[in-house]
């Protein structure tokens, strides 16, 4: 497919993404049927699922700022649903990635243990703080993600000359066959202790905002610890499946999971992601990524202005 047609297709997707959000931004018409918002939510999540895969971000990262900013649901329920969206997507993808060696159980377990413990604290903190504080912090975090997406570099195969003592003790190494080149890739990691500390902080953010944390996991695994990019992305999903499980239980126990919000979101996002994965070859990832950065910038500003009371 020529580039301009791919870009046009991407633009259409983003317009579709914006349409339900715009509709939701308007005041709910009096007497609107109860199913209008869940139907709009399903449509928005379906489109978010399509664009999230080519853009290389988790659906949860798009979900919380967009739904929290433009739908009438309270942020408590949006964060609970966001965690389930990220959890379901991570669980669905993990088995295939594990079998192909693109996710490493040995690498994920120690990181996930610390991150899932701290995510409980993050979830409790998020539910205890005033919503305006969480909304403002969410806006700042989303704007930080935008900056990270815009400037961060990635290293497909980082050079790790020697593993550190901790990664040797934990046997943090593996092997996979790169599907693009059919080359056998052996990998190992370094700076494991720093990585463990970073994942403690990532767990707090994941639990507090319900946005998943692939945007933070991948740079930490790839740029800091030196795991290959594909292993970083796959292992990030595996870590998320454990971190979001513990945070999700906190939201369930607090009553902050409303099925009419959570389930259409999960189903819509997973169906969209299946189409997004098929479009991966025909859509130009960099174009989609730039558009997603634009949408996130808008949603981040909206969360910030909503939290500070400038645009309630």
């Amino acid at each position, binding site marked *: 497919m020529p580039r301009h047609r791919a870009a046009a297709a991407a633009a259409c997707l983003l317009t579709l993404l914006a349409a339900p959000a715009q509709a939701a931004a308007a005041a709910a018409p009096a007497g609107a049927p109860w199913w209008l918002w869940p139907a709009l939510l399903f449509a928005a999540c379906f489109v978010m699922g399509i664009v999230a895969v080519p853009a290389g971000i988790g659906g949860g990262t798009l979900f919380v700022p967009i739904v929290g900013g433009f739908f009438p649901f309270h942020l408590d329920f949006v964060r609970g649903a966001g965690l389930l969206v990220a959890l379901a997507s991570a669980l669905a993808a993990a088995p295939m990635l*594990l079998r192909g060696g693109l996710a490493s*159980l040995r690498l994920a377990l120690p990181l996930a243990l610390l991150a899932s413990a701290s995510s409980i604290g993050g979830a409790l903190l998020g*539910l205890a703080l005033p919503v305006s504080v969480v909304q403002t912090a969410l806006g700042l975090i989303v704007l930080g993600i935008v900056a990270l997406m815009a400037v961060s570099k990635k290293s497909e195969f980082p050079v790790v000359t020697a593993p550190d003592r901790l990664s040797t003790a934990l046997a943090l190494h593996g092997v996979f066959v790169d599907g693009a080149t059919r080359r056998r890739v052996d990998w190992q990691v370094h700076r494991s202790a720093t990585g463990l500390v970073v994942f403690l902080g990532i767990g707090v953010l994941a639990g507090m905002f319900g946005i998943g944390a692939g945007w933070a996991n991948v740079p930490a695994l790839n740029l800091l610890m030196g795991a290959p990019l594909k292993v970083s992305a796959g292992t990030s999903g595996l870590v998320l499946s454990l971190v979001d499980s513990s945070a999700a239980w906190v939201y369930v126990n607090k009553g902050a999971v409303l099925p009419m919000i959570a389930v259409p979101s999960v189903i819509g996002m997973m169906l969209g992601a299946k189409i997004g994965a098929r479009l991966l070859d025909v859509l130009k990832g960099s174009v989609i990524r730039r558009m997603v950065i634009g949408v996130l910038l808008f949603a981040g500003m909206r969360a910030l202005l909503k939290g500070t009371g400038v645009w309630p």
Partner: protein
Amino acid sequence: MMPVEPGALAVEPRSITQPPEQLRYARWLEWGTRFGLALLIVVFLAYGVGLVEPHVPHSRLPEVWNLPVSQFLVATGLPDGWGWLRHAHRGDIANLIGIGLLAGASVLALLALVPLYLRQGNRLYAGLCVAEVAVLLLAASGLLTAGH
């Protein structure tokens, strides 16, 4: 099967096998997730089309979904913690069973690894699995509380 040298090109992906514990974890996680998602979809469809009576009527949802969770619980008379189990026969609350299965899928997969790690003499990773299960169970227990 012939071993494949590091960096070798034109490698058949199936020639590289992943560690047995990784494959076992993948298998358990896959079945747990499939079962949880299937149940979630079936129960939600029954709830959505009104086959099973919900605790909070559909028409009342727009009044309560914009409330903070603490006020939502008061307005709907729903308990927090595991109290929802008493209402699990209601269409909306029954969805939490599927959600719980998804959130608990990793626990079963982790527990399935412990005997394998112990047989390998890998007490470190057996301990990590048990510790992760303990964290997940602590989160699920509802013992930790906070709120607005």
